[in-house]
C-alpha cells in the first residue's frame, strides 16, 4: 500500500488530537478515581482497583471483538487491510487482558485471602488470554503469507467465542468473582452508586480512546512494514 503524503499529514493531525483527548480523559479518570469517588463501605480503598480492572477487561474484550469482525471480513474479502486490523487489535487485546489477569489477583488477595482461585470467570479469562497469545505466536512463528493469515483469522474467530462464556460464567455458576454491577436485570447502572458509575464511565472512555490511539499507530506500523517489504522486493528485482 503506497502512502499519500497528504493523507499521512492528515492522519498525524488526527493522531495528535487523539493523544490530547486520551491524555485529558486519563487525567479526568485519575482525579475521579483518587479524589472524586467515595470509598466503598465494605471493601474499602481496594475497591478502587475496579476502575482500572473493569476498563482493562472492556478494552481487551472490545479488541478481541474487532479481531473477530476483521477476521471474518478477511476470510470473506481476502483483503490484507482486514488482516492488519485484526493483528493490531489482537496485540492490544493481549496487553490489556494481561493487565486484567494481574490487577484481578491484586484485588483478590486482601478480599478473598488468595491471589487466584480456579473459578469459571478467572479460568475462562485465562483461557482467552492463552488463545490470543497463541494467535500472536502463530503470526510470528510461521512463514509469512496468506495461509498464516487464514489460520490466524480462524483462531481469532474461535477465540472470541469464549467471551460470551466469560460474561455469563458468573451467572451460570456459583463463582467467587463479583456479580455484574453495570449491566443487571434491573437495567444499566442500577446496581451502582451514581458517583461510582460516573467514575467508571470516565475510566471506560479513557481506555477506549487509548485503544483507538494505539490501533492507529499499530495499523500505520503494519502498513509501513508492507511498504518496506514492497521496496525490498523492488530493490531485489532491480539488482
Amino acid at each position, binding site marked *: 500500500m503506497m502512502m499519500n503524503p497528504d493523507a499521512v499529514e492528515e492522519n498525524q493531525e488526527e493522531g495528535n488530537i487523539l493523544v490530547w483527548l486520551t491524555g485529558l480523559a486519563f487525567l479526568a479518570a485519575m482525579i475521579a478515581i483518587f479524589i472524586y469517588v467515595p470509598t466503598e463501605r465494605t471493601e*474499602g*480503598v*481496594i475497591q*478502587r*482497583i475496579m476502575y*482500572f*480492572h473493569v476498563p*482493562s477487561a472492556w478494552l481487551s474484550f472490545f479488541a478481541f471483538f474487532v479481531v473477530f469482525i476483521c477476521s471474518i471480513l478477511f476470510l470473506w474479502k481476502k483483503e490484507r487491510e482486514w488482516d492488519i486490523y485484526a493483528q493490531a487489535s489482537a496485540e492490544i487485546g493481549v*496487553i490489556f487482558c*494481561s*493487565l486484567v489477569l*494481574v*490487577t484481578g489477583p*491484586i*484485588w483478590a*488477595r*486482601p478480599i478473598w485471602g488468595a491471589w487466584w482461585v480456579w473459578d469459571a470467570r478467572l479460568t475462562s479469562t485465562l483461557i482467552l488470554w492463552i488463545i490470543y497469545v497463541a494467535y500472536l505466536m502463530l503470526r510470528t512463528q510461521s512463514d509469512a503469507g496468506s495461509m498464516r493469515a487464514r489460520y490466524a483469522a480462524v483462531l481469532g474467530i474461535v477465540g472470541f467465542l469464549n467471551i460470551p462464556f466469560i460474561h455469563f460464567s458468573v451467572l451460570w455458576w456459583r463463582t467467587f468473582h463479583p456479580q455484574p454491577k453495570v449491566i443487571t436485570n434491573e437495567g444499566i447502572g442500577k446496581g451502582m452508586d451514581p458517583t461510582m458509575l460516573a467514575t467508571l464511565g470516565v475510566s471506560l472512555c479513557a481506555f477506549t480512546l*487509548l485503544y483507538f490511539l*494505539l490501533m492507529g*499507530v*499499530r495499523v*500505520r*506500523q503494519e502498513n*509501513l*512494514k508492507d*511498504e*518496506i517489504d514492497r*521496496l*525490498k522486493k*523492488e*530493490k531485489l528485482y*532491480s*539488482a
Partner: protein
Amino acid sequence: MDNLGFLFAANAVVWSGIIYYVYTIKQRSRALEKDLELLKEALSRKG
C-alpha cells in the same frame, strides 16, 4: 485506609504496562522508519 499498598501496586502495574507497551511501539516505529529511509536511499542511488 487498609490495603493502600495493593491499590498502589495495581495502579503501578497498569501504568507500567501501558507505558512499556507505548515505549515498545515507539521503538518499533523508529526502527521501521529507519529501514524505510535506508531502502529509499538505496533505491534512489540505483536510479
